[in-house]
């Protein structure tokens, strides 16, 4: 148990945006995890997805730490922000953009890639 707590503390410390989900960024295995990946793709900041689908003990530690029983679980700048049910209203109010700016030390997001069609 203590090992998982340390591991999680390390992970949320080293990733300004961290998603614990089911499946990976390239191969999400749950609709809500996919929705969360698509959500963060909109912002242009790098984010990490950690697959805990098969890791029941770690999932239990995470649920206890956050008082939140479901996946995905999102951490921004080390703080727990639930899932897109919380993040969508925060995005709409502008609160999320401020949090993300803070989490990345004021660095602007990567510019959206544009494709020129000739």
């Amino acid at each position, binding site marked *: 148990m203590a090992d998982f707590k340390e591991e999680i503390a390390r992970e949320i410390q080293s990733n300004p945006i961290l998603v614990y989900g089911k499946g990976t960024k390239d191969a999400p295995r749950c609709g809500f995890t996919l929705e969360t990946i698509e959500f963060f793709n909109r912002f242009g900041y790098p984010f990490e997805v950690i697959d805990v689908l098969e890791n029941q003990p770690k999932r239990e530690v995470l649920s206890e730490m956050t008082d939140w*029983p479901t996946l995905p679980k999102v951490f921004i700048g080390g703080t727990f922000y639930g899932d897109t*049910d*919380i993040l969508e209203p*925060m995005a709409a109010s502008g609160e999320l953009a401020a949090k993300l700016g803070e989490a990345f030390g004021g660095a602007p997001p990567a510019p959206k890639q544009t494709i020129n069609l000739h």
Partner: protein
Amino acid sequence: MIADHTLRDLIRTGLPDADVAIQDRTGTHDHFNVTVRSQAFAGKTLIQQHQLVYRALKAALADGRVHAVELTTIIAEN
């Protein structure tokens, strides 16, 4: 799988005044859109409001009766 009225009763164990609207997303009675209106949400952050609902659903989520919830919380006026 869980019946709508059981889900509503579980939420009301934690939030006795709650108005609960339930929509089955998949036809399998384990993925739901749930809207909860309660005075208990007053003065709480959105995440704390959701935690109150999830606390009441903890057992049903743990034993798989409920697989996923898309949750909306609304602060009820007095």
